[in-house]
């Protein structure tokens, strides 16, 4: 290839991501002149179709934004409605919510790390190829993922789009027997999570670090999953209700997902790297030790190591689920009573891919007047484009096909959920 010409590398439809997207990179000589992370997932207009629906319908409807992380949507919507209607869900019901969210983290993180991301580090096309050479890795991963789904089923009644969650709590409290049945498998799962953390820590990680603005939730008493304030590594500390005062979205032509940024127009990163780096001190001792043994410091600035961070979070989620399952006693009531009425509410939780914000306005009957939902992949889009730029610039001498794969891997660092963000991926690298 001649260095003075334009180089073009194209990926028609990016694989091993949830949803549809593409990437366009243009290189003139030794300079990257354009990076477009293109999301062409057809929009489904959730914020519009929610208008006029009853507040109680929002969890089930918004679950359908994403089949991989429905709990994030159901719980964000529920918290926002509970904020609007001034009720609080505490005690056993709150613990059950944290338990089912642990199930979603386990299911989603293991799917991404072992099945979608790990093949990149091994130069393989998919997890089926890994299974031929390293069957123990894939079978352990599948059993962990299955356990995540079993938690979702035990608490929520179904793994994809659970039926048992509602504003105020649950339709029916799960039986003590059903939850205690998770205890023994969760003890084994802690060992499997440790095994996979060590296996993935042995990968060669491309040398790329960036001084990210990490945005995550933080809770005073626990590693934040489903509740807390929104903080950043640059000193932000706000309640979810102030989200729109500090962050905004912009509509660009090459994406059906709105792009998130701070109100000052700065890019930022949400997800496992941000949570880990902001809240390392709140991980369990075992998770901290596993992270240190895997070569991670208390802050992780290499996005390719996100695969290890995800497994550290899986380890933590297994321990946390175990603790909650061992302590579970059936509550007196399956939910807090909710009375429909007018109000405005905000909710934010840590979806596996990062913070997911909801706000709704309700009329006197409890019907939705307006809805805004800001999913994690929308917020990460600008940072993803910037990482691709950095990675291409640092690897200008790579052959086109290798560079293309490295770009795909860079995008998969974010476990992008394109179905979610359109509320995503083809790759084109255009070199001159």
């Amino acid at each position, binding site marked *: 290839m001649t260095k003075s010409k334009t180089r073009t590398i194209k990926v028609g*439809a*990016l*694989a*091993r*991501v*949830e*949803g*549809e997207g593409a990437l366009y990179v243009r290189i003139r000589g030794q300079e990257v002149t354009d990076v477009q992370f293109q999301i062409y*997932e*057809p*929009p*489904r*207009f*959730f*914020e*519009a*179709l929610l*208008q006029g*629906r009853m507040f109680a*319908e929002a969890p*089930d*409807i918004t679950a*359908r*934004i*994403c*089949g*991989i992380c*429905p709990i994030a949507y159901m719980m964000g919507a529920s918290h926002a409605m509970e904020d609007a209607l001034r009720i609080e869900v505490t005690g056993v019901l709150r613990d059950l919510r944290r338990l089912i969210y642990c199930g979603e983290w386990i299911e989603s993180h293991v*799917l991404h790390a072992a*099945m*979608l991301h790990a*093949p990149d580090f091994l130069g393989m*096309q*998919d997890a*089926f190829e890994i*299974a031929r050479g390293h069957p123990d890795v*894939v*079978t352990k991963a*599948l059993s962990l*993922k*299955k356990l995540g*789904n079993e938690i979702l089923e035990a608490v929520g*009644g*179904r793994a*994809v*789009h659970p*039926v*048992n969650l*509602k504003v105020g709590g649950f*339709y*029916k409290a799960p039986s003590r027997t059903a939850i205690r049945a998770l205890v023994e498998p969760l003890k084994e799962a802690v060992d499997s999570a440790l095994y996979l953390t060590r296996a993935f820590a042995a990968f060669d990680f491309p040398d790329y670090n960036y001084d990210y603005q990490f945005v995550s939730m933080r809770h005073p008493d626990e590693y934040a999953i489903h509740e807390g304030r929104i903080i950043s590594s640059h000193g932000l500390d706000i309640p979810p209700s102030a989200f729109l005062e500090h962050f905004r979205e*912009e*509509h660009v*032509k090459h994406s*059906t997902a*709105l792009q998130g940024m701070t109100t000052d127009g700065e890019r930022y990163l949400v997800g496992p790297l941000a949570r880990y780096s902001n809240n390392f001190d709140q991980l369990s001792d075992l998770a901290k030790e596993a992270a240190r043994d895997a070569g991670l410091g208390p802050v992780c600035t290499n996005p390719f190591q996100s695969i290890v961070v995800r497994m550290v979070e899986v380890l933590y989620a297994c321990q946390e689920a175990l603790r909650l399952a061992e302590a579970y006693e059936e509550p007196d009531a*399956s939910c807090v009573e909710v009375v429909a009425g007018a109000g405005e509410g905000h909710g934010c939780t840590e979806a596996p891919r990062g913070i997911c914000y909801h706000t709704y306005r309700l009329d006197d009957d409890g019907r939705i007047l307006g809805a805004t939902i800001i999913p994690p992949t929308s917020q990460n889009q600008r940072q993803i484009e910037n990482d691709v730029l950095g990675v291409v610039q640092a690897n200008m001498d790579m052959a086109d096909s290798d560079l293309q794969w490295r770009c*795909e891997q860079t995008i998969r660092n974010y476990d992008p959920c394109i*179905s979610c963000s359109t*509320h995503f991926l083809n790759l084109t690298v255009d070199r001159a």
Partner: protein
Amino acid sequence: MPEPRKAKLAVWKFASCDGCQLSLLDCEDELLELAGAVEIAHFLEASRATVRGPYDLSLVEGSITNSHDAERIQKIRRQSKSLVTIGACATAGGIQALRNFAKVDDFIATVYAHPTYIEALAKSTPIHDHVRVDFELRGCPIDRRQLLEVLGAFLNGRRPNIPAYSECFECKRRGTVCVMVARGTPCLGPVTQAGCGNLCPPHQRGCYGCFGPMETPNTASLSGWFGSAGADQAKIRDLYRSFNAAAAPFRRESERHD
């Protein structure tokens, strides 16, 4: 004698949440065996490797919502010996078919600052509105046991054994107490196709119709019962107007209560 050629399986996505494709990856106990039994020729959510058509079996998730996808499904049909649609988006238009009851331009303007960047058809439509479909697997999401049954059937050249009767049968068989009779909770079970595995009534909530209308649903009669239990017109309309809103029997019934 040479080994028989493995069937080529393809999975395609249109407007959807990915949950039905995920149900295939959620068959944790059967996944590796399945991957050995067929050639996974096109499954972008799971693999970078793609093989050109024709394909023996295409699974299609999602609904048609823009002109690009309306053309893409035609190409997929031409390359597929059998085409099976999976999930409420593909079989009925999905939750995004709520736009069919509104003006799509209003929807675009509600969500996007630059409506001219967005190309969308006025309606979200099921795959069978565009091409011949060999089998429709219902659900929002589909049930993975039913998916395995459909895969087994098509790979062995037989009809899938998927019941078309109502969700009421699942309650009766399991001994679930009727939530309408015992608690007065509105339930779409009498008019909804079985297959979810009996989920909502055992959780003390009414069926919300994920699997779409059963074979011959008597929706008018059921709505009468809802009315006498105190549900107003808007509530009855919204019950039918959700994940299978555009399936004809549910659409017509919801429009009677507009």
